[in-house]
Structures are given as C-alpha cells and as structure tokens.
C-alpha cells in the first residue's frame, strides 16, 4: 500500500487497517478481558503450592511403606511404573513444545496421575494418611481444572481420553505388593517431577503471555491517530 503524506484516503485506509487488526493483538485485548495471564499465574501458584504439599505427603506415605522406600537414596527400577506419564523430557524437545502441546501434556499427565493417586488412597490404612491423600487429590483436581481453564482461555480443546485407555489401579495377580509399593514410590516421584516441570511450563507461558513492547507501541500509535 502506497501511503503518502497528505493523502487522506491513504491515511484513512491505514487507520481502518490498523483498527481492523486491533482485536487480533493480544496485548490490546487486556483492556476488557484480562486474558490468560492471571489464570496462568494462578495455575503456577497452585503448582508451587502442590509441590510443597506433596513434600509433606510423600514423607508420610513413604514412611508408611517402610524401608527401603523411605530411605533417602532409594532408587528402584521402574518395573511396574511404565504406565505412569513421564515428566522427564529432553531440554530441546521441551523448548520446542508449543503452548497447546505443552498444556495438553500437562493436562493428560495430571489426569492420569490423579487417577493413580486415588488408587493409592484406597490402600492407605491410617485415617491421617487417607485424609492427607484426599486433600492432595482435591488440590490436584483443582490444578487440573485450572489447566483446563487456561486451555479454554487460549482456545485449546481439552484432550479426550481414548475409550478403553482409562488408567486403572488394579494390579494383576502377578503384581506383588512389593512391586506395588515400588509403583507407589514412582507415582509420588513422578508427581513431584511433573509439578516441578509444570512450574517451569507455566512460568514460561506466563512470560510469553506478557504484552510485547511492539504491541504497546502499536497501541500508542493507533491511539495517536
């Protein structure tokens, strides 16, 4: 488009173009709708809170399992815990994840982990432990809802579970209680890693969703017109 000074039609056309594109600039939408920023921040805060909560719960639960599960350097093979969603990922792969995939992975992981965690609750005997686990499950459910909220704000659909792939916590007859305890250990460990990763994920998202300087400039220029 050839714009020259004094060309009122050209200016008008430019203004109309800018105004047309304004709703598409995320930073400018903040005036009416706060956008995903606050909900991401809340999700991040909830993640940190769950990290803290899990630290206490894991200590209690591993003591309930007894040695060697409560020993500090215990690192069992991941025998029966293969079905647990893995939080560890290559750094480059993690960096290359787009927002949707990033959020989807978090959502799917916590959906599965929550289901496993409820199975853990069924086995625990002491009332105190059951109460702690139930409280943590409620908090984790809240985190899941919070992630779903962020995804909805950004317009991402929630992942649908494939029929028949609903994770269950029903160990087969060959699955001994010792291996089950090891799975419990891995569940708590994976949960801890996921919360740590989620904190990184949401921190990254939070920074990304902050209004870039160019958008603000554009906003001012448009306002100046």
């Amino acid at each position: 488009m050839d714009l020259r000074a004094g060309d009122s039609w050209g200016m008008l056309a430019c203004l109309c173009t800018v105004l047309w594109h304004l709703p598409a600039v995320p930073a400018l939408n903040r005036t009416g709708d706060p956008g995903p920023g606050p909900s991401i921040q809340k999700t991040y805060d909830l993640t940190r809170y769950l990290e803290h909560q899990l630290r206490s719960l894991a200590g209690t639960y591993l003591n309930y399992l007894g040695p060697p599960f409560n020993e500090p350097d215990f690192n069992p093979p991941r025998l029966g815990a293969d079905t647990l969603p893995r939080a560890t990922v290559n750094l480059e792969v993690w960096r290359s994840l787009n927002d949707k995939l990033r959020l989807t992975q978090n959502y799917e992981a916590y959906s599965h982990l929550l289901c496993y965690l409820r199975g853990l609750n069924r086995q625990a005997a002491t009332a105190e432990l059951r109460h702690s686990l139930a409280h943590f499950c409620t908090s984790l459910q809240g985190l899941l809802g919070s992630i779903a909220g962020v995804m909805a704000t950004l317009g991402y659909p929630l992942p649908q579970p494939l029929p028949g792939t609903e994770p269950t916590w029903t160990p087969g007859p060959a699955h001994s209680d010792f291996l089950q305890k090891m799975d419990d250990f891995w569940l708590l460990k994976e949960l801890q890693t996921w919360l740590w990763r989620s904190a990184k994920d949401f921190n990254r998202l939070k920074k990304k969703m902050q209004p870039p300087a160019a958008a603000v400039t554009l906003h001012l220029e448009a306002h100046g017109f």
Partner: protein
Amino acid sequence: MALFAVFQTTFLLTLLSLRTHQSEVLAEHLPLTPEALKVSVNSAQQCLHLQWTVHNLPYNQEFKMIFQIQISRTETSNVIWMGNYSTTMKRNETVHWSWESELPLECAAHFVRIRSVVDDARFPEWNFWSSWSSWQEVNVQDSTGQDTLFVFPKDKLVEEGSNITICYISGNIQNDISCYLEGEQIHGEQLDPHVSTFKLENVPFIRKGGTNIYCEEKQRKAISNGTVLFVSKVLEEPKDFSCETRDFKTLICTWDPGANTALDWSKQPSQSYTLFESYSGKKKHCEEKNRCNWQITQDSQEIYNFTLITENYLRKRSVNLLFNLTHRVHPMSPFSVQFENISATSAVMTWKVHSLGDYFTLLCQVELHGEGKMIQHNVSVKANGKYLLNELEPNTEYVAQVHCADDNHFWKWSEWSGRDFTTPEAAPSEAPDVWRTMKSGSHNVTLFWKPLSKFHANGKILFYNVAVENLDKPSRLEHRSIPAPANSTELTLDGCSYQIRVTASNSAGASPAAVIVVSAAPGNKEIEEEIIEGTEDGFSMSWKPQSGDVMGYVVEWCDRPQDPLCDFQWKKLGPNTTSTVISSDAFRPGVQYNFRIYELSTKRIAHLLERKTGYTRELAPSDNPHVVTNNLTSHSFTLSWKNYSTKSQPAFIRGYHVYLKSKEEQCQPGAEKAVLPDDTVCCQYKIDNPEQKTFTVENLKPESFYEFLVTPHTSFSEGPSGTFTKVRTPDEYPYMLVHVIVPVVICVVLLVCGCLLKSQWMKDKCYPDIPDPYKSSVLSLIKSKENPHRTIMSISDCIPDAIEVVNKQEGSKIQSLGTRKSLTEPELTKLSYLYLLPTEKNYSGPGPCICFENYTYNQAASDCASCGHAPVSPEAPPSQWGLLTSSENLLKALEKNYMNSLGEIPAGETTLNYVSQLASPMSGDKDSLSTNALVPPPCSEYKMQMAVPLCLASPPPTENSDLSSITLLGPSEHYR
C-alpha cells in the same frame, strides 16, 4: 447220607482251594500300587494337594490301607519328607491328601511318589507294601524372564512369632545378591546355584503395611526385587465376656477384644465376632468389636448358652457363657428424684424406677453427701421409692442420690440419679464463747466473742446482741446490737458490778445467752509471774485452784504479743480442770508469751489466779546491750546498759557476761579466764541478775588500754560475739596536777592583771626604751674608717626571731663581751625571755626585728643544716649568700648586722656566730636613735641573733680593710 457227606466235603475242599488260589492271584497279579496320582499346587498356602486311587482292590468293600508318601526336592534322590497316611477306601475311590511345604514351592522342583499296604486284619495276606508309584514332579517356577530376580513367597500372610522360609531365584543373574529385612541384611543358605533360602524365625509385627524383604545386586547397588511379609498380630481370645439385660427385651453382650489384627493392602480385615446361642441355635454377626445386642424373644427362654467366636484369616477363637437371664438384670437408673417437706433437719426423698415386671423387687441405695460426710440407706422398691432423710443439719447443702439393683439376684447397680438440696436455717444452738479484758485503773471493758462454728451457728449469723445489767442497783437493761462479723465491743462501765449477756442471732432466731459478770472490785492482786517452758506443740501449764466452788477456768493470752492489737485469745476450761496445753499456729520461737489464768466463780466473776510466761523455744539473743562507759579513772571505769530491755528478748535473760581484754595476764578477783571463739583469752565477769545493768571494772592500771564486751546470757547461750570497745585509763598525775596547777594559773593571771594595771611602772622596770645604734659612738668610728656605703641594717628588713631579755649586772657587762666562758657563768648572768615588742608606738612598717642574745641557742646551733637561722659567713659576699637564701632582706640584715657587730667582736672568737640585728632605724629619727645607741640600756641589751654556720665562717683570702678586724675564731666561739 454218606454220599451227601462226601459231596459236602468235596465242596468245601473245592472252595478252600479256590480261595487259596484267589489269594495267590491277588498277591501275584493284583499289585495295590496307587495310580492316577495327581499333584496340584496352592502357592499361597504352600501346599501340595495329592489325589490318587487304587484300582486293583478286590471286592467292592472298604479296605483299611496305609499309604507311604515320599517327597523329594530338587531331585528325586533328595527325599525331604516321608510319611504314612492311613485311610479306608474302596476300589477306584480317590484319596485326597495335602502336604504343606515350609519352603515356597516356587523355590524348587518337588517330586512325589506313593506306595500302599492293606492294613486290614481281615486280609492279612495282603499286608505287604506295594511298589512305589512313579515320581510325580511339581514345578511352579515363575514363567517370567530368566534375567529377573524373584523373591518368594509373594505377599505371605503369617502370624506374629511364626517361622518362615523365603527364597530368591536369581535366574541368569551372575552378580552377588544381598537380601535385607527392613534394612537389615539377612543371611541364608544356597539351595542351588540360582536359589538361596533364608529362614526367618519368630517374625515380629512391624506395621500394618507389611514387612519389606528385598534383594539387591551388590554390583549394581540397585534393588532387584522383594516381597512383603504381612505379619498379623496373634488373635486373642475375647476377655471379660459378659451379657446382661436392662429391660428384658435386649441382651447386651460385651467383651474386651484385645489387639486388632487388621492388615493393610487388603491382606486381612479386622477380626470378626460372631455370637452363637446353642439352645436356640441362633447366630449373629456382631457389627462392633466389643459389644453385641441380642434380641430376647418372647419364648420365655431363661437359660442362655452363648459362644462368642472371633476369627481372622489365620486363627479362630471362642469363649463360652452360660447364664440365667433373671440373674443378669442391670436396672435402668432411677428417675424423677424429688425432695419433699424439707425442714432444717429432715427431708423426704422420692424417686421412680423402670418397672421390670410384677415379680421383680429392686433394692435401692440412697446416699446422702453433706458436710464432708456420706450416709447410706437401703430401700426396697417396687415402682416408686420414698425415703425420709433425717438428722440433717440446718442451713446445709446436701446431695442425695439413688441407684438400684435386682433385689433377688444382685448383678449390678444402676447408674446414680441424684439432686442436691439445702436445709433451711435454724436458731444457733449454742451460746457464743465470750471473754473480756479490763484495762487496769479504768472501767472500760472490752468484750470478745468467738464466731460460732458452722455446726452451732445453724445459718449465717447476722448480729450479736449484748445486754448489760447493773447488779448493784436496779437500772434499765442496756442493749446493744453489733452486726456480724464483729467479734468484740467495748463497754464503759462505772464502778458497779454488771452482768453481760451476749447472744448470736441469725435469720431463724437467737442463740442461748453467754453470761459474764464484771465485778466492781476486780481484786487483781499482784501475782508473781511464773516461767514455764513451751514446746513447738504449745505451752503446758497447770494451776492450783484457790476456792473449791468454781464454774471453770479461763486462760488468756495474746497470739502476737508484739503487735498493738496482740490478737487476744482465751480458752475456757471446766471446773475440774487444773491443767491444759495452750497451742496456736501463731506461736513463734523467740517470742515471749504471757498467760493469765482466771478462776470463774459460780457468780461468773473472774479472779486472776496465776500468771505464766514462756517461750515455745528460746533463741539466742541477737543483740548485745548498748554500753556506756562512765566514771573513768586511772584505776576503774563503770559500764552501764540501762536501756537494754530484758522483756523484748528472744529468750529469758539470765544475766550478763562482761569480757575484759587487757595486757595483764592475770584476771582480777571476781573474774575468770575465758577463751573467746576467736581463741583470744580474756577475763569474764559474770552477772547473774538480769536487772543489774551497771558494772564497775576496778583494779585497773593507769595509762592502760582495756577492751570490754557486755553480752547477755540465757540459760543455754549468750549474745553474739560482738566487737570489743576500747577504753584507756588516764594517767594518775594529771589528776594531781589539776589540783596544783589550777591555783597556780589563777595566781599568775591575777599577777598579770596586776601588772597590766601598773603597766607604765612595769615598762620602766622591765623594758625601757631601746637605745638607737645609729647614735652609737662605735658606729661613727666605723663610718670614718670604712666604706661609706655601709649602712646600718634597717630593722624593717629583719625577721624577728626571739627576744631575749638578759638581766645583767652592770659589773658583768664587760665580761660578757669577753670570753664565752664568763658569759655562761650563772652567777654572773641571769637570763629571761620576753616576746618581741615594737620599739615605738608610731611604728607602722614591718615588725621590728629585735633579737636578744640567747646563749642557750648559741650552743645548740652547731649543726648548720638543722639551724633555723640562715647560716651566714661574715666573709661571704652578697652573691654567695644569695645561694644560701633568696631573701634579700635577710641578706641586707645580715650584712648590716655583721657591720654593726664588728666593733664588739673580740679577737679569737669561734666560727659559729650570732649576729645581732638591731632595731630598724626606719621607724625612728636618726638623732634619737644615735643617742639611744650610745646609751646602754639600764637593765638589758637587745641583739638580733643570726646563726652562722661553721662552713661559711672562714674569711676570704683578701686583705680588705673591712676584714682587718675580723679574727678567725676557734671552735665553739662566736662573733660579737
């Protein structure tokens, strides 16, 4: 007939032979080897279930048989168990038998074989062992990969204290493997190169979540696998199993369940409890662990035989209880407890009970709590209970409660039901205890009374009534009402006798009156105080009754005698009592308590009988008396401590000890040597009369130091070892001198006064005008010969030293100017001393320096360093003198004096000089001065004296004309 017999015999023989043949066939052709042996495995139970049959059994009848079973492990030759199993069986019947292995069956292959024998008396011919069946192998190896380590048994449930064997199968793993139980390594034995077993004995209960046993490869330091051993607590037999009914509708059975044997991970739930009644054959599963309700049916069953069964996965236990229902009645607690007709001393209690039927009578127990006491009464009750509570105290809060039990067959009391109530007040039941004090010499009577005890007050005392009646003359009764809680009042009476009546009143009425009579003539004669010994428990005292007809005795005292209010106390005693013990919590050691014992006549008049005093415990005196020293003489002094009060001491003062320290080794008569706590020895005087508060120490030495200490002593100790006070006896002569000198001084004063009156006369006689040296002929002679700059020393420059008045006879003057020897002769010279006086009345300058020659000083001034005068050499120039003294005036004076005295210095005088300084010419005119100088004084001459040290007296080696007349003087001579 014979044919028949032959036929019969033949038949029997045939039959016998047939039977023999059959036996031989069974033995040879019918082996009883067990067949169709099948072995199944129960891994969780670690059991082998065997089933087999014996096909070759003849006849279709039961045979009693013994089966011998062999079990081998790992290989057939390794037989680990062999045993017999006896049973009866028919042909083709299947026999079942189980064997429990201590080693998990997964750990090794097992082999089983069986053989049998007929153990039946009917067939003794078959009593031989059959052949062994073929070995049957049992192998329950896990089908998973060979690179995985397995630990068996998996998730085993065992009872606490049992023994268990575990094993691991390492498969193809070549590394060393260590196994741990809850972190502690366990050691086992190797079964084969890939299998090791561990025997755990007496396994403990650790947690409901199971005991973890795990193995790890040493090289990898990673846990390979493990198992959880679920150790259950031992199921206990229920204790204190009991059943009872409260309403004949439900039986409530209770028991103590003991430890919960539940385990987590769904391994074992809590033990279950089931109630079984054998007569009715009914069974009930109990929902709760420690109680169960059993519904009583209306079939009039009286006897119950209960069995309480508890079980878990590992064990089953039971207890039995047989009882008659009517003997196990635990009534419900009574209700509607009420009180009726509550008076000061009684109340009626009513209550209701839940009916148990017409044939039941309840025994109810009423308990009454009040005033720290408890009273129980039993009442038999059908439906409504009622009981009269009597002998209650007025104005008292009571709690009454009731519980009931079956009267026919006591089983248990019901719970208590109760209420509280308070009885109303009643008039006080007893007269207050009244006593009085009377101030001596006045008619003021203070009445005291003790508050009534709660038992006698019967309510809250509101006021005390005091009625005073004059006994000597009829008059109006005087009433006084004193509100409680006052406990005294003061009455002012006249000299008459009065009867005083005191009553205490509450809301219900007044108490009986306490009567006391105050006599017009108290007749408190002087009664000597008796000392009594007290103890921590109080004072025990007795008295002698004076008159036979008495109402009683009263002992009065003060609990705090040192306080102004003194906390007055008394104790009334009966007429037959002549001794008592007075005790009080207020009694303190070291405090003197005084007791007065009164006798109460039948007319209620009190007479002082005896006085006692004492301490509960005497303490050592804490202070020594403040002692004043009087009458100090050279041989004695008097000590006095009259302000010392013996009454306020913490013990009875029995006397005093006076300690005297001196340099004398021997003590005076009346004293004895005593060693003080600091090991010093001194003399001790003993004073045994506590009221003797002065003491004179005699036979002392004059001008000597003495130290004394006065300390009180009691019957067991004496006062503190305080500091001694020093005293010095004076000299005995001043005493005499005072008598001599005082009159002399008075005489001298009178003489001086007389002299002052005759001063002019005295002046003429004693100190006439001083001659002026300026007008001396000698001075004129010197002036003509010597330096005209020389001047006569001004008297104002002279420092006065002393005035010497020398009375000389005219005839001896010339001699005195000659040798010293002639001067010192007493017969020639009389010396006297006067103070320096001004030469003229109008003299206003510095005081004249007039020195009178002092021969005594002359001799004494041999040491130049100690001389009070500036040492002067006659030959020393002024500059040198400046080194000796900074006073310029002194320098000039010395110079002038030297010049003046040249004319008088005889040849051959000594080095120590006394240079006269004559009167200053500044104050007078030269004429008169010169005139006077030439005229010698009539009775004295004045010369200023200066001591000149020997070291400076040597003349300088010059031939100055000034020195021409100076002659080196010998020792002990002086310039003149």
